[in-house]
């Protein structure tokens, strides 16, 4: 009954690493950074309407926020000269403001000079430090190291450490449109958009991309991850550029967007986590961060403007879902979610990935115990969310070929219309969420968590979510037979939707219901100190942690399964 997973390693689509877009970009790093800084500067000047007063105000706002950040929220990864740099900006600004000898044009020029310094600094900071040798080393280390751990745990005997019986691909299954993405990656530029539940996702996706034989993708990784040296090494090796969520000023955001847009135009395959950050609630992202997504649309339009009308200038959006039985950070994520929703009185920042030790411990657990991960690769779309065929041509709902360029045309020409592109970004965001739901792969653990939570909710239908979470655990007990019936009911519905292509299900859901439930309960949140679902001595279903149960339950949110109860 088990499905065939991709087990072989694909041949690289571009054998020579000198030809990899990301290597080319690294080679031209200095010119690229300069170009990004200049374009970002031009963009900001455009936004300020070249008005010196507005520009001055933007500079002052940026300065104020940056000084505040340096003082209140310094990170290990920040460069040492942060303080000096912003002080210099402050002094220059003061000098320009008070220098009466300057006329309007000179003043504007002086402000522009400052702007240039700032965008250059930001562009330099954002740019990735990809080194092909580090990439190769990391890749083999991840693959080799993980394989050793895995075999040590599963194959008995002294030689186990050298066994090659199990590879990482037994642990992490890749399904879906893998051939399509490989093929399109040789022809156009890919923007991969995965769901985001765990900090492990970045490494995982990086590894998947390499298994599929594709050159590394560049992606924006939270600067906070670079605080941890082991992560910083991985991230740099994987081609990450840096996204600093503390900096919310216009100049930073514009530089970041310019970087992303230019990299896509350069031909670098990119990876965005469109949810922005990890899903706090455990739900599939329903509202996407559209900032970086808009750069894919901008890059596509710019390619058309530059006359790149064939497939080499085409940008393909590929949604990916990552499915876990277990999310290491679940306890803190769900606490954050609940407190942000406003009812928890306090919450404690508790990042499980805060130290290298904790990460290694997790990785060891992950590879020595049997908890699988599957990654589903969705169908490629153009930047408007139309599916594309094997030639990369966009298809409308009826399968007619259409030209994506037509979306950017008015009065016969490709035009820049920011407002239009904002709407297109919204549309694309909605399409990605739809696709996430279609390719989402249900695990036994999602099913049991969903059913357990819904049954508890049903029995306490007067309580809202916050009261539910505070229910004393000893009051919760679901008779096994009732639980089993409800699981069957939801599973039937899942298979009904699967037949319509509206969801996907892991092969282990074809086992008998008792097996599925046992498998689910064994796996759901398996490394948490308090388990989301347990069976008591009488065999009834209960929980040790309602919040966690809620988190894992949320994975099946958005399919209207709750209406079955």
């Amino acid at each position, binding site marked *: 009954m088990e499905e065939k997973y991709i087990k072989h390693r694909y041949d690289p689509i571009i054998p020579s690493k000198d030809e990899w877009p990301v290597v080319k970009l690294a080679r031209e790093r200095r010119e690229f950074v300069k170009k990004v800084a200049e374009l970002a500067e031009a963009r900001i000047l455009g936004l300020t309407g070249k008005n010196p007063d507005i520009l001055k105000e933007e500079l002052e706002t940026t300065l104020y926020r940056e000084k505040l950040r340096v003082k209140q929220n310094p990170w290990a990864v920040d460069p040492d000269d942060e303080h000096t740099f912003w002080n210099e900006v402050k002094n220059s600004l003061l000098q320009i403001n008070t220098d009466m000898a300057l006329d309007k044009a000179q003043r504007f020029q002086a402000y522009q000079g400052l702007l240039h310094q700032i965008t250059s600094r930001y562009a330099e900071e954002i740019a990735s430090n990809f080194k092909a040798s580090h990439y190769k080393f990391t890749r083999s280390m991840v693959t080799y190291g993980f394989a050793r751990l895995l075999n040590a745990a599963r194959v008995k005997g002294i030689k186990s450490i050298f066994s090659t019986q199990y590879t990482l691909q037994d642990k992490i299954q890749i399904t879906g449109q893998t051939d399509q993405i490989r093929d399109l990656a040789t022809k156009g530029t890919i923007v991969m958009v995965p769901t985001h539940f765990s900090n492990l996702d970045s490494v995982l996706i990086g590894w998947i991309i390499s298994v599929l034989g594709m050159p590394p993708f560049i992606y924006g990784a939270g600067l906070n991850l670079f605080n941890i040296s082991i992560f910083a090494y991985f991230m740099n090796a994987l081609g990450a550029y840096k996204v600093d969520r503390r900096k919310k000023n216009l100049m930073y955001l514009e530089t970041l967007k310019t970087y992303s847009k230019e990299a896509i135009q350069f031909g670098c395959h990119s990876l965005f986590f469109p949810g922005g950050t990890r899903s706090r609630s455990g739900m599939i992202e329903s509202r996407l961060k559209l900032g970086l997504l808009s750069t894919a649309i901008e890059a596509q339009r710019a390619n058309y403007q530059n006359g790149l009308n064939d497939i080499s200038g085409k940008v393909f959006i590929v949604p990916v879902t990552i499915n876990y039985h277990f999310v290491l950070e679940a306890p803190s994520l769900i606490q954050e979610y609940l407190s942000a929703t406003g009812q928890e009185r306090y919450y404690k920042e508790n990042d499980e990935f805060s130290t290298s030790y904790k990460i290694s411990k997790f990785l060891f657990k992950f590879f020595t115990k049997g908890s699988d991960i599957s990654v589903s690769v969705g169908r490629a779309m153009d930047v408007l969310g139309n599916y594309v065929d094997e030639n990369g041509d966009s298809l409308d709902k009826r399968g007619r070929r259409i*030209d994506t360029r037509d979306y950017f045309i*008015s009065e016969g020409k490709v035009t820049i219309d920011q407002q*239009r592109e904002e709407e297109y970004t919204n549309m694309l965001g909605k399409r990605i969420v739809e696709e996430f739901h279609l390719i989402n792969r249900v695990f036994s653990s999602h099913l049991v968590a969903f059913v357990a939570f819904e049954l508890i909710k049903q029995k306490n239908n007067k309580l809202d979510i916050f009261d539910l979470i505070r229910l004393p655990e000893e009051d919760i007990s679901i008779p096994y037979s009732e639980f089993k019936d409800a699981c069957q009911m939801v599973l039937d519905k899942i298979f009904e939707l699967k037949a319509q292509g509206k969801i996907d299900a892991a092969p282990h859901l074809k086992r008998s219901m008792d097996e599925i439930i046992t498998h689910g309960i064994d796996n759901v949140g398996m490394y948490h100190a308090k388990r989301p679902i347990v069976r008591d001595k009488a065999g009834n279903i209960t929980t040790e942690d309602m919040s966690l149960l809620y988190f894992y339950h949320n994975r099946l949110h958005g399919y209207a399964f709750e209406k079955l109860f």
Partner: protein
Amino acid sequence: MPSKNSSKSKKVGVVGVGSFGTAIANMLAEKNEVVVFARKEDVVEEINVAHTVSGRLLNPAIRATTDPAEICEQCDILFFMISSAGFVEVVRRFAPHLYPYHVIIHGTKGLALNLGRDESLESVQKIKRSQLLTMSEVILQETVAVRVGCLAGPNIAKELIAGHPAATVIASKYNEVILEGQKLLRSERFQVYGNSDIIGVELSGVLKNIIAIASGALAGLGLGENAKGLLISRGMVEMVHLSKALGGSVQSVMGLAGIGDLVTTCNSVDSRNFTVGFRLAKGERLDEILATMDEVAEGINTVRIVDAFIKTAGIRAPITENLHRVLFEDLPISDALQFLMKYPFSVDVDFV
């Protein structure tokens, strides 16, 4: 994959030559070359030869065609001016010829159902928001065009043709659609406002037809102006609540396409919706009225759809509900009126 890049100035298309379509085509023809689409060969010939359509004069420069491919090929911007009954069918006919560069602005006030193949309003009884579509949603669902707008407001075709001053709203999510529409239509006698809440504007135009039936009924009962003032005010409140539940904003109901059109329609004794209400009040039954009308009054269909929606939305809309009972459940109109007068409207304005 034809991609039109010719720089020569494009023609403007008008699909449908009813009274409103004719009026708009004439206004457009003042500044642009216009092509109109009609289904019937003889209508096209009448336009091309005699420059009239059903007796109404048409600008002699306007050319007509029965071929959707031709009009789509010649025009980048199309005005869909068709009755709501034929809307879905016409849009489906045009779909194979439309491309993402086309801009479509429609002037149709109606709702379409979005049900499964073997479902009908009778079989499902209640409908959810996802099971009904505004006309712009029909276009988005059926075609690959995305730059879609709508035209709504107090625009009685007869007055537009006579050249009386008037105004309209073009609503679209895309600024370029609004600007393009304004550029094409604005004149000394015709003001064009823009609104980004296309759903709210479409719904205003749709929902006001319900109130127009009620207004006709009041007139038929001979109840005078106080009653009409009461109806328009309460009707507006009901439109606000329904529009909000269907995804429109309050502001749009307050605008030209909402209150502006509502007042006009409630006073326009020639309108089909008003007539239905009027004759109902005179004691005729719905099937008798329909038998003598060549085109269905859109408000009747709207009452049915909205009434089915109210059941799932958990809101009350007393005017719509009672009209539904009068139209389809044989409630005497006087009983409906009495019911409305007793209905506990406790607050005057509860939505701002």
